């Protein structure tokens, strides 16, 4: 056998670079990719320099020079963003394009590891558009310097370069995930709208911020995008699967398989057919079934969800801190919170506020169930993050008021114990568990359960959510709602009422 320089130092990077070099060369040989990149890199930024100059003069004539001043940095962002939009096109066809051209199998038969393949493909999709974006920014700035003598601050340049880079990385890492999970370039292009639409919205938000000229806020967007990058890259590496890439030819929605898998994980049929249940007199079957559910199934699911529960608890602690700091920063005037004037009417008048549920156990239960179900739905589309955010918001508000109460001279612990604890003892754990299970439904796409496909892992998470929600969360919320209506007001009036 030919001497293979095995395990030579730096081999992993050399393999990645070989892949990156080939992919970039391939991209640059396609005139359909090169021509738009050149136009967006050279002509468009040069044109933007002239546009900025003309706009500046024009708005100055009408006494609105501020519009022109804000437009220059805004266009800086635009000339950076346009070329990186090409990274999406390149990244979308990385894996699925090779699969369609039948060139993927030879590549998979080389000693490249999954991580090397993923990294090489991602870098190859990123580098040409990103270089084009940097060049575009440079052309724009040079043009403005010569035409207008305008130079940006180092902070603004750094911000624009970093923002452009993380935006490119979000699009590429998202597109690589799509590319590795689809069976045709056409399907990948269709699914790309899940990347294009949020990015388009984000650019609009960025544009508003740029005209508002509070550039510091953009660093928060950079931070947010970095978190999204980490999530997408992790998801890409976890979901990368040679078998799925090679084996899957058609993406058929197999409802029978979906239902079968869901039922299997729900354990529906097993509950009644278990020998322990069968041996019990018919009238007492429900007792054994309940014993199995609460004594075995639910603890197993909760144990499986302990990481998600931990994440939610951390989120809740963080939201409490946010509530505390907001209260420190924005203290309320004393007349807003006059706890010694709390009476029975304080509670019964609450539904007069449009957004508040009717002050009855059923109204509170309905509101809580609806919120947690909405959180679960949002979790599916946000890798679980929005579910946590939805739960964090009320807790931040609670701790905002706990801190305010302390500032106003009341006992914060007594406030918490009277207003929150009676029903919160049941409601908070129920909401935490429901949110954690919702987080699992979202996170299943990022990190599929071991030995399961993404679909199966997700269906198990949905089954776990459904089972726990029906047999544990709803009863707990119902009990909490009764306490909230009949016990909490009594406790509050006893503690604070005049």
């Amino acid at each position, binding site marked *: 056998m030919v001497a293979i320089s095995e395990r030579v130092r730096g081999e992993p990077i050399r393999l990645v670079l070989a892949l990156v070099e080939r992919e970039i060369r*391939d991209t640059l040989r396609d005139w359909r990719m090169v021509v738009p990149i050149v136009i967006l890199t050279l002509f468009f930024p040069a044109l933007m320099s002239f546009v900025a100059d003309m706009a500046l003069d024009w708005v100055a004539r009408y006494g609105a020079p501020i519009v022109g001043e804000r437009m220059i940095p805004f266009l800086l962002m635009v000339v950076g963003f346009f070329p990186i939009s090409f990274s999406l096109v390149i990244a979308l066809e990385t894996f699925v394009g090779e699969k369609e*051209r039948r060139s993927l199998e030879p590549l998979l038969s080389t000693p490249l590891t999954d991580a090397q393949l993923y990294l090489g493909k991602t870098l190859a999709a990123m580098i040409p558009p990103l270089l084009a974006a940097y060049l575009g920014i440079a052309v724009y700035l040079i043009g403005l310097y010569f035409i207008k003598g305008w130079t940006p601050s180092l902070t603004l340049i750094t911000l624009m370069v970093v923002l452009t880079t993380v935006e490119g990385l979000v699009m590429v890492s998202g597109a690589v995930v799509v590319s590795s999970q689809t069976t045709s370039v056409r399907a990948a292009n269709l699914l790309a709208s899940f990347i294009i639409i949020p990015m388009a919205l984000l650019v609009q938000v960025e544009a508003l911020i740029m005209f508002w000229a509070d550039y510091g806020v953009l660093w928060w967007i950079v931070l947010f995008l970095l978190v999204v990058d980490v999530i997408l890259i992790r998801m890409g590496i976890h979901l990368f699967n040679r078998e799925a890439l090679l*084996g899957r030819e058609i993406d058929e929605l197999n409802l029978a398989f979906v239902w079968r898998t869901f039922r299997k994980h729900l354990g529906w049929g097993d509950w009644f057919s278990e020998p322990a249940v069968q041996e019990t007199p018919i009238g007492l079957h429900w007792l054994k079934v309940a014993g199995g559910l609460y004594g075995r199934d639910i603890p197993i699911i909760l144990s499986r969800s302990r990481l998600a529960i931990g994440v939610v608890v951390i989120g809740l602690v963080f939201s409490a801190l946010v509530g505390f700091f907001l209260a420190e920063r924005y203290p309320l005037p004393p007349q807003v919170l006059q706890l010694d004037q709390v009476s029975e009417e304080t509670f019964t008048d609450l539904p007069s506020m449009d957004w508040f549920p009717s002050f009855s156990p059923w109204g509170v239960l309905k509101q809580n169930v609806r919120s947690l179900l909405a959180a679960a739905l949002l979790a599916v589309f946000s890798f679980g993050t929005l579910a946590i955010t939805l739960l964090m918001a009320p807790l931040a508000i609670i701790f905002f008021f706990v801190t305010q109460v302390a500032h106003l001279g009341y006992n914060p612990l007594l406030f918490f114990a009277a207003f929150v604890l009676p029903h919160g003892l049941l409601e908070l754990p129920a909401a935490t568990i429901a949110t954690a299970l919702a987080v699992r439904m979202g996170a299943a796409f990022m990190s599929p359960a071991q030995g399961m496909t993404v679909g199966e892992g997700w269906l198990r998470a949905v089954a776990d959510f459904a089972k726990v929600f029906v047999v544990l969360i709803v009863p707990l919320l119902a009990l909490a709602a009764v306490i909230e209506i009949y016990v909490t007001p009594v406790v509050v009036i006893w503690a604070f009422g005049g």
Partner: protein
Amino acid sequence: MIELSDLTKRFDDFTAVDRVTLSVAPGEILALLGPNGAGKTTTVRMLAAILPPTAGQAFVAGYSVTEHSREVRRRVGLLTEHPGLYLRMRGGEYLDFFGRLLSLDADERERRARELLARFGMSEAWDKRLGTYSKGMRQKMALIRAMLHDPTVLLLDEPTSAMDPHSAKLVRDAILGLRHHRRSIVICTHNLAEAESLADRIAIIRRGKIIASGTSAELKTQLLGPSLMELRLDRPPDGVVKLISDLVEIEEQGQNWVRYSAADFQETNPRLLQLLATHGVGVVTLGETPRSLEDVYLQVVEGE
């Protein structure tokens, strides 16, 4: 060099490869035959450590395909069902790229690439874009890619498909040359004549299972019964049949021919010819009845 033990691959509810057990020694060529969708390509993909088996074990070049998949991929040359070339690349560039992925030194990459291109009559293809290659050239280029690092194990899926007879012969000669260098080779093919001429052993796979295996001769005997001799005469065989029936077992007869079987043709045939000559019967030809691998294949596949 290749050892498979109860190798199984399932995709959801579908079993593509079902407890396949076989081995290929160094310097041996195994032909894997079977209808489309029989599990040949999946088997090869598992041997190339691209797909992980669901159950069972496979050792290739001494490494487990599940535990040391990367080491296996270093030592295997895979010719895929479709050439799968990067059409915008030039020949030399393409081989250099794969040479780099296989960690070959720069000099070695170029030397091997030029040597193999020359062996397959494609020296002039070095600077040409792969998109301009003919079908046969693309197939040869894919084969060269598989042989670039001189692998100890070669897995070849339809190695001569789309090739003209001259190119196909070049490829067959190359494969036989590799056998002399003690490489283990697995060929998946529908070309039965090629399988018969190249392979030391043949395995027929259907619905993921090996349903017959052995040398070509063993398979023929096993599935078509013992071989027959065909005797062509200068006259109708009626009288002759009576004459030779003490020596051999008559199986069939026609207008001027007879087919017979015997325990040992080495001993029987000279005696038979002597007997016929003694009785003045003219013998036009005497030879073994032709039986092709196709007969065996059809018998096995249709019989299942």
